[in-house]
């Protein structure tokens, strides 16, 4: 597993994807940070993290789009399937490599908020709650990306498919607000919406149920990816 993880992580920097992701992520995060705090004279972290949630939804497929697609396209998938490593370990190694890239970028930008300390009474607990939620949502997005990548050998299809599923998860909350008067349906939609769950953290609530939600949704997509490869190895 460690070998695959290292190979994947190194792979990001032998090609352009790792650099493109980090450069774009840090640049966009920097702009959003400056405009939502410094230029608005506000230490409110909510705007930053809400916008970064959407940005992550669009950018994380960059990291995952070639995870399995590339292996299939270059016919190295057979090597992986016959390697002395279990399928769950293989999937987790690829997921972990993408997640390390994302988490490193996200934690690096967390340091931006240190700039605000001399100018405000920063609510550290709220900030860390938002960061935790962002890291958890990132896990879900990457798990979705890895799953979609396992279904196709076309990287573009993988990225577009991932963004579509992520937007669907984000959009559940919007759909619920459009539902006419069905309280229960709206309630169920809300409870399954990534965005509604995220809002609890932005309001300063450290919500255990939402943590379980993110972990379970991410785990389902990891499970589905494992099932896809289980079948492929069996065939």
């Amino acid at each position, binding site marked *: 597993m460690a070998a695959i993880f290292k190979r994947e992580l190194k792979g990001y920097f032998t090609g*352009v994807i790792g650099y493109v992701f980090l450069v774009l992520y840090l640049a966009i995060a920097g702009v959003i940070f*400056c405009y939502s705090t410094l*230029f608005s004279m506000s230490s409110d972290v909510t705007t930053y993290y809400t916008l970064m949630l959407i940005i992550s939804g669009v950018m994380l497929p960059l990291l995952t789009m070639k995870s399995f697609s590339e292996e299939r396209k270059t016919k190295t998938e057979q090597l992986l399937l016959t390697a002395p490593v279990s399928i769950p370990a293989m999937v987790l190694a690829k997921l972990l490599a993408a997640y390390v890239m994302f988490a490193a970028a996200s934690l690096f930008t967390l340091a931006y908020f240190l700039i605000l300390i001399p100018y405000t009474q920063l609510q550290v607990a709220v900030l860390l709650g938002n960061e935790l939620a962002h890291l958890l949502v990132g896990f879900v997005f990457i798990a979705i990306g890895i799953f979609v990548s396992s279904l196709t050998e076309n990287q573009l299809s993988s990225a577009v498919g991932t963004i579509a599923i992520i937007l669907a998860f984000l959009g559940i909350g919007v759909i619920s607000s459009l539902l006419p008067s069905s309280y229960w349906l709206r309630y169920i939609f809300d409870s399954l919406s990534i965005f509604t769950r995220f809002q609890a953290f932005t309001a300063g*609530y450290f919500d255990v149920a939402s943590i379980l939600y993110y972990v379970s949704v991410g785990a389902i997509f990891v499970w*589905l990816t494992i099932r896809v490869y289980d079948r492929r190895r069996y065939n």
Partner: protein
Amino acid sequence: MNKMLEGLKGAFSGKGFEGNTITALVIAVTVVLNVLIYTLTSLFGWYIYSPESADLSLSGSTDELFAEAIEDGEEVTVMFCLTEDALKSHDTGAYVLETARGFAERYPDFVKLKFVNYLTRRDEDGKLVDLAKYKTDMRGNEIAIYDSSVIFISGENYKVLTDVYTAAGFADFYTLNSKYEVEAYNGEEVMASMISWVLKDDSEHKTAYFTENHGETVDVAFSNMLSCAGYYVNVVNLRKQPVPEDAGLVVISNPRNDFERAALEGSGVRTEIERLEAYLAEGNGGLGGSLYVSLDPYTRRLPVLEGFLFEHGITVEGRDGEFGYSRDLVKDDTNGISLDGLSILASYAEGEKATLIAESAKGANSASVLLARTARLTLSNGAKALLYSSPTSVAMNSDEVVDSEGGYAVVAYSDTTYDGGGTGRIVVMPSVLTTTTDTLITKGYANKDFMYSVFEVLFDSLTSPRGANVVLYNTKMLENLPMGMSRTVFVCLMIIPAALAVVGYVTLKRRANR
């Protein structure tokens, strides 16, 4: 696409127990469990609310206010119209109770607490309390007493705080914004002021009159500050009546419409300006009246009022342009603290009164005074500045720089001595946002302490409660951050990805060449 769908089928198929049934079951169970846990969390509150809890400890800054009264063995009773248990569980009253307890513990022989059941009229010892006597203030005006009223009593003096703004109760101890939303809890300051209030004889308390009928806007926080400074607060319509005799201060707060022009000669009618002039000459028992004028630089010109200020040596600068008269705005792109450069930090002026004000304000808060969207003043006839903008500021009018000398007077006062011996005093602040809730509740700027010092030094206010702890409900404002610094940070943050892009390019290029 077909291959993608084929792959998707793989997730739901397999052999026996590992097949599509178990996959579908796992997803269904996860969905149901999530909805269930979401519901249980809402019902039983399985979450941690992370914002830090409020620090209600006393600052000790009130010791000086009470030193003399404590030495004289005086006693003040803070009477609540709720039982102690009911207060503990009251949304807004619990904080007030804790502050009152803090005072009672800090000054055990001076401050006593009393709890009366509003319905039964009995105190904690079961004795009947006559609440009816507090239904009129010491000047005979009617006051409504509710269960959220707090009565401060010292001997025959009393003062009732009754919430007339909100349904929540105890609003006087909180700072509300213009939408009546709670911005801060300043119980220590209010309680200290009210304790001080009842230590003085009622006749010592003057009234601050806000003028009306000119589209004036008044921030609740500013009005409450005047109460804390020992003023009764009321309104006066100068078209109908002269300034009342008990006026200690007249406030013209951001008028949108001008004052009356001169009346026809010989008509016997006194104009508003004449009434103001008469008050300045004869107010405060012949010593001379006090007038505070704040102006919104974005409103249309007020020739009569501004002409009156000009006669007293204070000119609000502006010019006639294509779209009518507009005032010069002070802008500072280097040291300003907003992106548009119109929020500036002012420095204290020199001079006898200005120095006294500076020392008094700095004693409580060494921060600067924040002025936002302010006009510039030019002074003559002995009028003096209280605050200046920085040397890097410029004067703008209709997006053009009309003056770049910097160091403009942005708050000023003038004294006028009249034939009768009285000295009328006018303070002019051509900025609306200087006394708004945001700037008054924070300790990051010294606006509140500056205003209290102005009341104390120029208007001889009775009380000047400074340095009290404030619990902020919205602590999201960045303070004292110059825009120059923000721009530097922005450039630094953009250098990081740019450097990474260069490193990536060089690395990949070398690898390709190999």
